[in-house]
């Protein structure tokens, strides 16, 4: 038998491979996805994967494991990766890599998180739009743009729309800048969680349940601290909370402009915060989330917000129609049907073990030096029995936090 004959026979035999289309995608999309998946598999340091303009339907998560890769589209309104028919994910894109840049593209309708980056260093996310196109729904994916356990992270000029938990969610990371982004119609617009060192500025959060959140969750190896929230616009975040019960942000009341929960060293300044119907700024403890219990929460977890410095913000409107029965009742009882909460709402939990003459140590106080702004101490620990509006308790100074510098930006 000649060599040629053998090769022909082998090719015929190889034709038995099964290619069963299961659902959804056109032949062009199937071919596009296969080529793109191969690029993700073959990527190595220096690889640039271009996403051409157009709406590309995929049914499987794009996973990247090589460092030093750039993924680049033609614009966040032009190069669209749609995961509406996803059968294997649940993320849109999942990245386990460092020195990673993604820019100028959109990820739509993934079943889980839109873009998740786990355990990377030197991450740049620029002009990326993650969106659930059917509007806010509990069945949307949890997080839009989600770097976690990462170091040196830049998220800029990007957008998240419709996430059923947090739109831009920086978790358990270090050294982070989040700037010039847009977050709309998410439960939480932008959330900085268990992160050390974050600057959040020049973002716009509107139409979410809560605009900008700085949280510490229990049981995690890294407690967060040192976040600056400044020069942002957070307005009209009055969307009914559509998170599943038990989700981290399910306890955020609709109408929250900026929320600081259980996190130390947070500076909030120079922001425009307006027309958030529960309160423009909420400072609270993990106790107010209803998740605290001694069995399930690490005893070393510190649930108190401390070293919080609020100054120079432009507050307007808001506090006039708080979410939830407790807060509604409280508002009406204190300020009347047509009244409103003051600019800042504090749940009133303090770590009584640390108090000296009734005050937390100087370095751990909540300081509000914001013109005429007053603070409502809601007296959460006593079921709102003795709430009071105060200003003098919060007259103090804290050292200002250093700006974040990223080695790669």
């Amino acid at each position: 038998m000649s060599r040629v004959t053998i090769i022909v026979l082998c090719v015929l035999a190889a034709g038995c491979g099964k290619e069963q289309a299961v659902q959804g995608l056109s032949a062009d999309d199937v071919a596009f996805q296969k080529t793109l998946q191969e690029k993700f598999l073959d990527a190595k340091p220096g690889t640039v994967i271009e996403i051409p303009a157009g709406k590309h339907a995929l049914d499987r998560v794009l996973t990247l494991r090589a460092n030093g890769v750039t993924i680049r589209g033609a614009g966040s309104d032009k190069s669209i990766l749609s995961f509406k028919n996803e059968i294997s994910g649940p993320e849109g894109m999942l990245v386990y890599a460092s020195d990673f840049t993604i820019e100028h593209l959109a990820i739509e309708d993934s079943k889980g998180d839109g873009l998740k980056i786990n355990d990377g260093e030197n991450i740049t996310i620029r002009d990326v739009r993650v969106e659930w196109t059917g509007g806010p729904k509990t069945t949307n994916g949890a997080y839009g743009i989600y770097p976690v356990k990462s170091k040196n992270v830049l998220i800029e000029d990007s957008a998240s729309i419709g996430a059923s938990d947090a739109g831009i969610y920086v978790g358990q990371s270090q050294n982070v800048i989040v700037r010039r982004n847009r977050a709309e119609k998410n439960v939480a617009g932008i959330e900085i969680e268990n992160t050390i060192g974050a600057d959040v500025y020049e973002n716009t959060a509107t139409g979410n349940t809560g605009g900008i959140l700085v949280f510490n969750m229990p049981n995690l190896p890294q407690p967060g601290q040192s976040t600056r929230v400044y020069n942002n616009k957070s307005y009209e975040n009055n969307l009914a909370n559509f998170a599943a019960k038990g989700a981290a942000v399910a306890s955020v009341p609709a109408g929250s402009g900026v929320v600081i929960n259980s996190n130390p060293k947070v500076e909030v300044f120079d922001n425009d915060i307006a027309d958030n119907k529960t309160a423009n700024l909420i400072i609270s403890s993990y106790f107010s989330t209803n998740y605290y219990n001694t069995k399930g929460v690490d005893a070393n977890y510190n649930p108190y917000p401390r070293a919080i410095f609020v100054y120079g913000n432009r507050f307007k409107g808001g506090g006039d129609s708080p979410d939830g029965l407790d807060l509604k009742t409280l508002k009406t009882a204190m300020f009347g049907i047509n009244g409103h909460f003051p600019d800042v709402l504090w749940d009133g939990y303090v770590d009584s073990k640390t108090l000296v003459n009734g005050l937390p140590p100087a370095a751990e106080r909540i300081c509000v030096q914001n013109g005429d702004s007053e603070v409502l101490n809601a007296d959460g620990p006593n079921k709102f029995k003795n709430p009071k509006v105060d200003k003098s308790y919060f007259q103090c100074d804290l050292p200002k936090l250093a700006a974040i510098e990223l080695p790669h930006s």
Partner: protein
Amino acid sequence: MSLSWARLLCICSGALALIACGRTPQPVHFFADGRPPKLSDWQVVYADGGKLALNKGVIPYDLNTPLFSDYAHKLRTVWMPGGTAAKYVADESFDFPVGTIITKTFYYPLPQGAARDAKSVARTYDQSRDFAHDGGGAEALNLANVHLIETRVLVRRAKGWEAFPYVWNASQTEAELARTGDALALELVSDDGAREAFTYVVPNENQCAGCHVVDLKTKAIAPIGAKARHLNRDYDYSTGSENQLVHWTKLGILTGAPDAANAPRNANWRDPQQPVDTRARAYLDVNCGHCHNAKGPANTTALDLTAFAESDRHVGVCKPPVAAGRGTGDHIFDIVPGKPADSILPYRMQSNEEGVMMPEQGRSTTHREGVHLIEQWISAMSGACNSLS
């Protein structure tokens, strides 16, 4: 890669019976690099004469409690180059020598009494029809009774482990490399004839790493099943039944193993003689522990489901979720003692919905019996998660 003409003939042999390719296969071929396009290139397992046969020196093995994969049955094999051996490690994967080839063939028995078609496969734990017993023992599959889906190859090269998925063709003669995975429309058929259509998803190479990278810092791929606690059980070899650790030691492919009685041993999750707690923990260990461990991709969640985790908030008791999103199913703790219906763990296990279900990949159907075991386990727990506020 260089394939000899003889091997080319063999590759074609299954599909083209007119080419006589002898019953003595080429020796197992370790490829030090590259991606062989066909499973038979490796010469580890191959379809031959109505059987899926194992080459000489290829040892089948099984686990006390396996990972659930849409009710697929699995034939696992290990091969090491002559004169080499794995070093025993008590709690992690054994330290295998360069050249080791592990395969796992996913297949289903055909439904009882049904003619073979492209989609119908049995939903059963019964393995009695799977094997070609001509030589005795469970060392070759009977292709008259089973439907081969895919064979995953895990190979230990000088720079580390690499994973390759191969998908079997319709005529069941060869499996071809499917780097980008595949999706197959199948139907599970129960003994009573009930059918459940589902999409069987073959992972792509990066998704293989989704489970096999158990340490995010090193990013190294490692075997999951080849650990003492999974392997410490008997296997029905053609030479008779024997403990796998003992057998491997006798063969000279494992050094340093203690007596089987002194080696760790996970429970068989289906063995009603064993306590629910040890069965549940064995189930969670192998199904969840490769991500939910202190160094794994799910260490972002503070939930540790390995065999070594403390039986408290670390395995989820009264623990608020960290990043479950809508995966909570409106429940506020991973596990509420005594109340499986209020617990997130079984909720995510029973779901088939992307973004809710756990594990995130590797299944499209619900493992009913697995969910039931975890529900039993939670039902038997005492105490409550009293919120303090």
